[in-house]
């Protein structure tokens, strides 16, 4: 916690196209990087134009801090994200990082009980869609490293819009839902049979807001702890401008960029 934030130049090592709408950027820096938590994000500077001027917040999709490497998953939605997606090997990207509070998991004392799958003190389900899967990928890698058990559930409208499912399947058991049934189970992520088979204790979700809300309701029914990651529009990303707020359970406005973007679903007023 309270790691020093820095402004660093990164360079594109590889730009991997994932379908028509996403790219995965592999980046490195010569600067020393602090430890990065899954769920934290960066603020990327874009060239000033009449379309955009402010930095763009993007989740950290993977990190090897000791090697100065991170990955980002970028969806092409507007001019800024299209510019980032078009960068070639060697291109420079200026970023402020690491920002925000990421996902959390229990301390070691709880973890020792994970051997018994029926009565596990920790068993997680990671549920996401679209670029919301970016931070969940890094979370999955961290949980795997910690030896904590988890399953993954990926949702998409159809086969064309499905992203990152293969990459996730390499880290952990991954279920897929599409609304039109073109791949995986037909329906929404909350309809997937995974929910019935396993007693999850922790649910982590990032994706479209209606999906996260539905997942949070489901988690409550299961009495599982639920962490959601919000994507409110931001200006500073540093807790200074108060543009990014969301109401908490008491109705007070809190900054998504510093108190979040990851929140305990029960702490939120939505």
């Amino acid at each position, binding site marked *: 916690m309270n790691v020093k934030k820095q402004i660093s130049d990164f360079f594109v090592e590889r730009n991997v196209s994932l379908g028509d709408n996403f790219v995965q950027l592999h980046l490195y820096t010569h600067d020393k990087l602090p430890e990065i938590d899954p769920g934290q994000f960066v603020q990327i500077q874009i060239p000033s134009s009449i379309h955009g001027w*402010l930095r763009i917040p993007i989740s950290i999709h993977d990190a090897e801090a000791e090697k100065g490497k991170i990955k980002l998953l970028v969806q092409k939605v507007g001019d800024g994200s299209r510019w980032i997606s078009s960068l070639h090997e060697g291109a420079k990207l200026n970023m402020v990082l690491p920002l925000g509070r990421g996902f959390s998991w229990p301390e070691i004392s709880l973890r020792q009980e994970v051997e018994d799958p029926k009565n596990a003190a920790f068993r997680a389900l990671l549920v996401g869609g679209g670029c919301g899967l970016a931070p969940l990928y890094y979370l999955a890698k961290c949980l795997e490293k910690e030896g904590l058990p988890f399953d993954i559930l990926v949702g998409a409208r159809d086969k064309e819009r499905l992203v990152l499912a293969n990459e996730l399947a390499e880290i952990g058991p991954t279920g897929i839902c599409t609304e039109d049934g073109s791949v995986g189970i037909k329906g929404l992520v909350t309809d997937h049979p995974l929910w019935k088979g396993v007693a999850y204790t922790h649910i982590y979700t990032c994706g479209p807001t209606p999906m996260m809300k539905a997942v949070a309701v489901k988690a409550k029914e299961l009495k599982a702890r639920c962490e959601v990651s919000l994507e409110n529009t931001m*200006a*500073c990303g*540093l*807790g200074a*401008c*108060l543009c990014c*707020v*969301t109401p908490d359970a008491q109705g007070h*406005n809190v900054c998504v960029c510093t108190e979040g973007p990851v929140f305990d679903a029960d702490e939120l007023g939505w």
Partner: protein
Amino acid sequence: MMNLRTNIGNLELKNPVLTASGTFGYGVEFSDFVNLDNLGGFIVKGTTGQPREGNPYPRMAETPLGMLNAVGLQNKGVDYFIEHIIPQIGQKRDRNADFPARLMVNVSGSTIEEYVEVAGKLATCEEVDAIEVNISCPNVKQGGMAFGTDPKMAAQVARAVRDVYPRCMIVKLSPNVTDIVAMALAVEEAGADSVSLINTLLGMAVDVNRRKPVLSTVTGGLSGPCVKPVALRMVWQVAKKVRIPVVGIGGICSATDALEFLMAGASAVEIGSANFVDPSVTQKVVDGLEAYCRKEGISDIKEIIGII
């Protein structure tokens, strides 16, 4: 030896670079990127008598080379500021600085009584070197019309605050008026030590996909590079007419931008939205001013203030 020192009334600044209220938090948010005590001063968030939650989200819309905001003065109130936030700011200060940055507080209210309450409490705080009275707030007793759009109301606020606040009092002017010079003259007459301008310009953005305004409040305040020419024109007009020092604000992103304001008559400048794009911009502007003076053989920055 180059001299970047400048004055706002009786208050001397080590250099003309300040931060604009609402864009630099309490300074502590930026302490990883700038040594706060390298700045002339920093002006912290708008502070009111009681805690305020501000406006509902969405509060921000990006616009061509600028942004609209409708934060609505979210803050924890003056008592909390004095008790909890001033000590936090103290921890991020550079104790070895031979000339520390000035801590200034932006004061807001819905009634004259509220301005007086906040200013009176801040007068008892030694750590606070100056206040900046934000008169762009709606006056709830006058149907929500901003104090800063009527010279008489503006002067009333300034005079009432003057009575309770003995140190440096800057009055921050709204650009949403027909004659900003009349506003400046009115608050000068009422006892202000300085005027700062401009606050944000009233604007609006529409989301055509949702067929709705982007901001929850429909309208909001425009800031950023797009407002700079308007701000510069107003600073020049005001500086020609008032005797008190003028602080220039609006779209400043570089030392060159700051120099434009100084030459147009500003004794100091505030950097606002540019902090969001480059959290270390304030330090770069200080360095840039120094480099300019060295290159041009200027020994005292005051030589160029108001040369236009």
